[in-house]
């Protein structure tokens, strides 16, 4: 351990810098992959129907999946899922762009507190976005047309946030997709950038005092802090 820390020590600040860059790049990937996937299985849909939620759109297995899900949902009085009617899909891409911008700023300025603040805000926004997703699911599942042809007393059709749920003839499976993973990686890397730097400044001093003779590169690290 000591040896490893020893080897890494000269570049810790630089590693934090790399972590932060990784966090930013990872966030850029979010645009190119779905965040969440809801799969519906029914006896009539043995291959399942898949709906993908992206940062800026909702898609399905093919161009017609949403129409097909809406046709099925109308029997129980659920509203049509219309991506155009979801304002979040319009401003989330900008919010993400803002976060990426701030991430770049933090990366350029190389300030520990900025790494922390960025990761913290990012994590907070992510949790809020997941909560927002939950609210939409709740709304779709609970606010049913009173004239719906199929009414089951006490039944709501909210899909699970994560996991499996049986809704009448459907088994709904909801799971995060790649973009959610990139978001998580971004946040972890943000925090890592902060922690990494901290370990450099605090622990290396201890190491230095207790065990190691100062060398030139360590000295330079110490000087920076």
């Amino acid at each position, binding site marked *: 351990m000591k040896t490893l820390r020893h080897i890494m020590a000269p570049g810790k600040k630089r590693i934090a810098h790399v972590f932060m860059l990784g966090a930013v790049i990872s966030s850029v990937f979010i645009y190119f992959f779905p965040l969440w996937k809801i799969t519906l299985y029914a006896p009539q849909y043995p291959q399942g129907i898949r709906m993908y939620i992206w940062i800026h759109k909702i898609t399905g297995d093919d*161009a*017609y999946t949403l*129409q*097909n899900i809406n*046709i099925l949902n109308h*029997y129980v009085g659920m509203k049509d899922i219309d991506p155009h009617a979801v304002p979040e899909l319009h401003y989330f891409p900008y919010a993400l762009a803002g976060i990426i911008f701030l991430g770049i700023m933090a990366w350029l300025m190389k300030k520990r507190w900025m790494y922390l603040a960025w990761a913290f805000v990012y994590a907070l926004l992510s949790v809020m976005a997941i909560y927002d997703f939950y609210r939409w699911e709740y709304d779709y599942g609970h606010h049913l047309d009173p004239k719906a*042809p*199929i009414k089951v007393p006490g039944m709501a059709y909210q899909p699970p946030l994560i996991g499996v749920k049986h809704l009448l003839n459907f088994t709904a499976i909801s799971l995060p997709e790649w973009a959610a993973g990139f978001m998580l990686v971004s946040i972890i890397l943000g925090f890592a950038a902060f922690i990494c730097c901290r370990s450099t400044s605090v622990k290396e001093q201890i190491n230095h005092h207790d065990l190691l003779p100062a060398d030139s590169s360590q000295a330079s690290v110490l000087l920076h802090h």
Partner: protein
Amino acid sequence: MKPIIFSRPMTQVIPMLAGIIAMAGLLLASCQARRSSEAGAINAQEAAQRVYVAPGKYDEFYAFMSGGYSGQVSVYGLPSGRLFKIIPVFSQNPENGYGYSEETKPLLMTSYGFIPWDDAHHPELSQTNGVPDGRWLFINANNTPRVARIDLKTFETVETIEIPNSAGNHSSPFVTENTEYVVAGTRFSVPTPQQDVPIDSYKKNFKGVLSFIKVEPSGDMDLAFQVIMPGFDYDLAHAGKGKSKDWVFFTCYNSEEAHTLLEVNASQKDKDFVAAINWKKAEAYIQQGKYHQMPGTYYDNRFDTSTQTARSFVHKGVKVLIPAECPGLVYLIPAPKSPHGVDVDPSGNYIVANGKLNADLSVFSFDKMQQAIQQKQFDGEVNGIPVLKFDATLAGIVKSGGLGPLHTEFDDKGNAYTTFFISSEVVKWKLGTWQVEDRQPTFYSPGHLMIPGGDSRKPWGKYLVALNKITKDRYLPTGPELCQSAQLFDISGDKMKLLLDFPTVGEPHYAQAIPASILMPQSDKIYSLANNRNPYVTKTEKEARVVRNGRRIDVYMTEIRSHFVPDNIEGIHLGDTVYFHLTNLEQDWDAAHGFAVEGNRDNAELLLMPGQTKTLKWVPQRVGVFPFYCTDFCSALHQEMQGYIRVSAPAEQVALSWSTGKE
């Protein structure tokens, strides 16, 4: 009294004993024969395991069988023998409105007018390099000569082309190696061009016309040219492959040119012919302008997948070649009495012609035929067509001991399999040695047989299907008419093994099969609504409407689970003609809807696949309010998928109106 036998002189006893010994020998031999055939059979449990396709599992092959006089093609799975679909081709089909809907009616148009029935005999898969490629299936209409093309992405008929100057389009529609041409040979010779002449002027006036239909890369067919042949009956055909790919072979009977009581009068000569036509030469002669223009009106009906509508194109005149003017175009090979099937082996060298009134099979060699042509080994000529010497072209004779050989197909191990109609069996023999390897009885009287790819360069020689003509005692009786039937054999081993009997639609004449792995991935699941260019499409419920144009009413109506838009229509008057233009808005696989309206005197229903538009013509007969409804159980609320159309007397002042969901 002493037994008589001892009172007779020994001279009489000896031949008698010899007779008894011979009888015993025959009995023994037949016992052995039976035992050997039992050795080829397998027990019921093993057979069941071989053909059993577990629930939810897929068959290994798609088999397409002609529906014979049903005018249709039926699609089966092999080895299970399960029926998947009936594709209407030359017959109206009330089940899905084929030939009833305005979009599909043109597919049944001919120069005689609308003909809603035919007799369909030979399905033929398109080929690339002599191997079935899964693009299209062709099939002939025998009665009113036509050739149809079925698209194997949708399993729907997309083109029918009429063949002028032809009658009994039986030696059809066999394809050349790369589907350059589909042939359509006439079974009956007729006055050419048609005219009013005494029937007994047959020899003078009657001709047999062989047609070559060009197939474009898009699949569109065009009648390229015809060859005017002597007035024989042209029975079957097959194109060459590999080295013989430029040739098409036709069997002919009635070289006697009889016109009455053919069963006697056309069975007089010991040999008839195989006509070998070099289509590459024919192409060259056409290009050189060595053709004659002959009258002949014919329809080419094409189904445009983007408009989902068929249109008829009427053509007049056809290019014809006269063999006497075109050296090297046609040769006649003498073949044993009344040959039926003519089949080319996977190498393209051997041409098997089966004399159906004969016991033996004559196999000709393409190489020898070429040699005979070069060395001018001719045996006279007919109408200027050289007749090649029988011995000079013969590769071998299969001495079978069966009776009535009809058709031959091939496996991938150098074996050939021939049906024997009269002795009711399939005989396996080896190419080259001409020795019989195995024989199995069929039940009963097989016509064609089919091995997947068995008439191509690459047979998938695992199964053989015998298409039988008689089924006495094999199934539960159903009155005087018994079911039609096919039998599946396992041909993967040395001996053929009967695996399965299964009933079929119509009288299946011929069949083709292709591995499911080729067709399954390319099968369409829906018709794209976005690409639907039918002029009467209604793409959204908002666009649904009713339009009056004089006495014509156009109803632009949509269907989606589980309602019509509009579902209440008023303001129709007696004397109006209503066109229901239905569009199925669904874009989900297998989400079909139907449409039927009460009192529809001239029509059937419509069955619409997702994204399809179809039009049903309805002439109201009475005043009143008539229901219409979805005929395909589409959803939990299918029974609620209904509507009303009100028909008023002409004098009534009822304004045109329509709605859905207005209480």
